[in-house]
């Protein structure tokens, strides 16, 4: 079974799509926000591969084609942003203030917690770009002398965690404005958070798309200023 399934290039893609559909079905069935389709899909694929003893390589050979589509998908984030341009103009002050606060809050919280855990400099700078999109974060980590692979892991974990916990956090903090939700998801959890924001609505998706780019660029400027603190 394993050698047979893994021999097709389409296996990884089919397994990913199937697992995601299963995740959507599960959320609908249970109504639990913990049953986040992305999280369920990742766990389901890992379980499937280990139960049927299929090597990771056999999966990723096909599934990597999905990753290639991330760049054109990111380009397409311009479309909801364009549709919501009037909203952006109207809320420009809120957008700018929220993203700047978010980026500063990210650096401050990582600094404080790194002190608490007595982390070395190299781990501190590895974590600093964790809330921004992978391609920018890798460059920032490298520049600051961090461990790039660990930065990538942190970015993905952050994104999935933000995607999964957003509904719950918005409920607890009484964040109800679509613009605020979108900015929060994009600033804290980059593109993976944005994929959740797009499911919430077009205004959320547009603001989240904008926040990926702006928070990423602001972080590029902020990290060199704070990287010497530990």
């Amino acid at each position, binding site marked *: 079974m394993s050698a047979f399934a893994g021999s097709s290039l389409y296996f990884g893609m089919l397994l990913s799509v199937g697992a995601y559909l299963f995740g959507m079905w599960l959320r609908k069935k249970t109504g639990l926000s913990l049953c986040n389709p992305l999280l369920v899909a990742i766990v389901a694929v890992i379980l499937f591969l280990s139960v049927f003893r299929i090597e990771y390589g056999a999966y990723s050979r096909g599934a990597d084609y999905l990753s290639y589509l991330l760049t054109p998908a990111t380009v*397409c984030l311009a479309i909801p942003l364009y549709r919501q341009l009037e909203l952006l103009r109207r809320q420009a002050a809120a957008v700018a203030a929220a993203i700047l606060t978010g980026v500063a809050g990210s650096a401050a919280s990582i600094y404080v917690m790194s002190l608490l855990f007595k982390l070395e400099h190299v781990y501190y700078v590895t974590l600093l770009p964790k809330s921004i999109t992978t391609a920018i974060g890798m460059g920032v980590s490298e520049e600051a002398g961090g461990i790039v692979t660990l930065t990538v892991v942190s970015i993905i974990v952050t994104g999935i965690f933000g995607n999964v916990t957003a509904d719950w956090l918005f409920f607890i903090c009484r964040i109800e404005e679509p613009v605020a939700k979108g900015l929060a998801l994009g600033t804290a959890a980059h593109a993976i958070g944005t994929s959740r924001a797009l499911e919430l609505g077009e205004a959320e998706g547009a603001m989240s798309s904008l926040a990926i780019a702006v928070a990423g660029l602001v972080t590029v400027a902020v990290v060199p200023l704070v990287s010497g603190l530990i």
Partner: protein
Amino acid sequence: MRYLKGTAIIFGITMAGDFLSRLLSLPVPAGVYGLFLLLFLLCAGWVREADVAEVGDFFLEIMPLLFIPAGVGLIESLEQMRQVLIPFAAINGCSTLFVMAVTGLVAQAIIRRRGADGPVEESSDREERR
């Protein structure tokens, strides 16, 4: 025909973004250059929204799917993480919630304060452009 056109435009812009990110040695990825390029072309009227809407909506709908391989790949780097697993998990979790909360609350506070200023605010959109 509209699928062909949209696909051509989106992949064309993606490639332009790719070239830009390699040409300018800034830590900005191809997708972000492409995002602003497409936004500019839409605003300038050189690309019509209708031409990219269908293919674009397809990409946006399947977007969460595209993160599954990266998520599954995490098990491969578990070994590397071992000695910093606990601080990394704690910092990633707490910091993400903190950033999401402050960003959302700051945005909401500003939006609501401006909203409370009355209907004048709403109708003066045009003068408000800065």
